[in-house]
């Protein structure tokens, strides 16, 4: 039994102990991405990158509940949308500054996410996915059928000012670009830190060895609620960024199509890993963008890739890279020393 915990701890312990080279690499990638708008100021490409970045924030939050906490939550898109609607409505109806609206939107999403955490505790895996999936469908259904004008129904919210109403169009894009990049870094670091913290180890023990967790007095209720609160907040902030950048939000941000794309991104990157969401989101955004003129083919190809990856590449890209690395290092060490048995 304690093997499960030490295995979880070992898996967890790997991340913060990155070699200096890896840290340099990560900082370099972020720095290069940060200077893109200065050297290459194509508005279309920047818009695609910002939109992809917002999805990455959402995916980071989803990966936290789905991959790390192991709760089959398929309602995350509704949490994201509710954060967006919350922020957007505050921008429309109050005089609060945009950034505060985004944070409040995050808090609203976080609160609803916590409410969603309660029923999942009693349910077994596949029932959780059904329940949360149904929750997302209800949220979408209610908004689509809202005739009161409050949420704008299927046409979406009225135009909002967003975060940077004072800036010109070009400066706005740059400002959003850097804001989203900063949020990605913050969200990823937060999730990575949590994964290796007491909270993260508790969550992974509940996921992998629930009986052992219970025997050791790990209270699943407390930890799951914290996990849902944090992931809900990150998703809600992503929603707030969406409504700010697009100056509106419609119920089409939820539903089967965006959910299929996001799940594909997570699975292709590698569920439960830290780099997975970034790898998957980047790769799929590139594929989507290059196929933008063929919307039907785009999703057909995505679905096929999803199927192939799950069947043939368990663990996604991160798992694949790890296997290749270990094979190479084993091959190298076999070449150096006498062959080992086994």
């Amino acid at each position, binding site marked *: 039994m304690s093997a499960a915990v030490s295995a979880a701890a070992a898996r967890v312990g790997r991340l913060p102990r990155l070699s200096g080279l890896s840290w340099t690499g990560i900082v370099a990638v972020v720095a290069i991405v940060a200077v893109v708008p200065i050297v290459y100021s194509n508005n279309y490409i920047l818009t695609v990158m910002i939109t992809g970045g917002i999805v990455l924030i959402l995916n980071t939050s989803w990966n936290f509940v789905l991959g790390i906490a192991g709760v089959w939550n398929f309602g995350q898109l509704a949490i994201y949308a509710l954060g967006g609607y919350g922020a957007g409505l505050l921008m429309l109806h109050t005089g609060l500054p945009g950034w505060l609206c985004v944070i409040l939107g995050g808090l609203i999403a976080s609160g609803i996410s916590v409410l969603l955490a309660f029923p999942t505790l009693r*349910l077994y895996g596949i029932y959780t996915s059904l329940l949360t999936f149904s929750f997302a469908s209800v949220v979408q259904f209610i908004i689509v059928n809202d005739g009161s004008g409050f949420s704008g129904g299927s046409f979406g919210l009225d135009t909002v000012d967003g975060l940077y109403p004072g800036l010109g169009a070009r400066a706005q894009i740059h400002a959003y670009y850097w804001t989203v990049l900063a949020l990605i870094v913050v969200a990823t670091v937060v999730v990575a830190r949590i994964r290796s913290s007491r909270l993260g180890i508790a969550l992974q023990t509940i996921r992998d060895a629930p009986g052992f967790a219970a025997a050791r007095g790990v209270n699943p209720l407390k930890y799951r609620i914290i996990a849902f609160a944090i992931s809900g907040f990150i998703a809600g902030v992503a929603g707030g960024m969406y409504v700010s950048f697009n100056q509106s939000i419609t119920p089409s941000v939820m539903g089967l199509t965006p959910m299929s794309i996001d799940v594909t991104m997570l699975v292709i990157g590698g569920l439960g890993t830290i780099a997975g969401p970034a790898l998957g989101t980047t790769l799929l955004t590139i594929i989507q963008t290059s196929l933008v003129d063929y919307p039907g083919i785009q*999703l057909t190809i995505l679905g096929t890739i999803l199927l192939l990856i*799950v069947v*043939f590449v368990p663990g996604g890209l991160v798992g694949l890279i790890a296997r290749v690395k270990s094979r190479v290092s084993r091959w190298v060490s076999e070449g150096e020393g006498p062959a080992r048995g086994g």
Partner: protein
Amino acid sequence: MSSSDLVAIVVTTIVFGSIYGLVSIGMTLIYGTLRILDMSQGSMVMVGGFVGWGILTVATWNPIVALIAAFVVTFVLGTFTELISVQPLMSRRGEIDFEMVTFITTFAVAIVLANLALQIFGPFQKNVPPLIHGGVSILGVHLDYHSMLMAFTSILLMIGLGLFLSRTRWGFAIRAVAQDLDAARLMGVPVGKLYPLTMGLASALAGIGGVFLGALYFASPTSGDLPLLTALIVVIFGGLGSLKGTLYAAYIIGLIQALAIVLVGTTWSLPILYGVILLVLIFRPYGLFGNPSEARL
């Protein structure tokens, strides 16, 4: 409540309950036998709708042809879906989270099918005519023949499925596999063939449902989404893998919807339904008849 309200509630319950049963029972059959939640079941309803459109609207052939064609097409498609999205994972059953992985792979098939339909037929809704036109009025409640035929056919097919499972050689095999896989193999049941055929059969029932639903709601690439959701709710409510539970759940959900539609109005029927189901699940986490260890098929 007036007597016409009462008639409306009874009729709506029977019509909704029967079609819900038909599109959900395949999902139960698949879960009971293969232990997977087949997310491509909604796509089969969608494909059935397009087959109905092609044969009734484009070719203007007999409705019987449409039903048979929908059965055949979705049977083949369901078999094929099993072969590409489930069969390759069978040998790794012990190492992976089989339910989660097949949830995703069948979902991937659903994505591909919906977008192939979008490629082939375009995004616009296609009109599917009712299988029979006309209707009658009972106590001021209009009853169209199409809905009556839909309920009748659904009930007939569900009885047929029951007889198939309890009387025929392959029906025995499906029940045996659902209860003890190794013992069934020792009896000589070829599991590698039985799994795809079970998924084909389940898909074909949803496909026939799709022809009827097509006339009620059009055929379009997204016309499988709502039936998928309904089927998920029915099976979760009845308890995964329990045929009896699925049937009860289908009619109970039909009744809740009928009450909501007649008494509150159509818009709020779905949210009310979800509310009721959420409440039930909080008190009975495995659904009405679900039991994690017993009662398979």
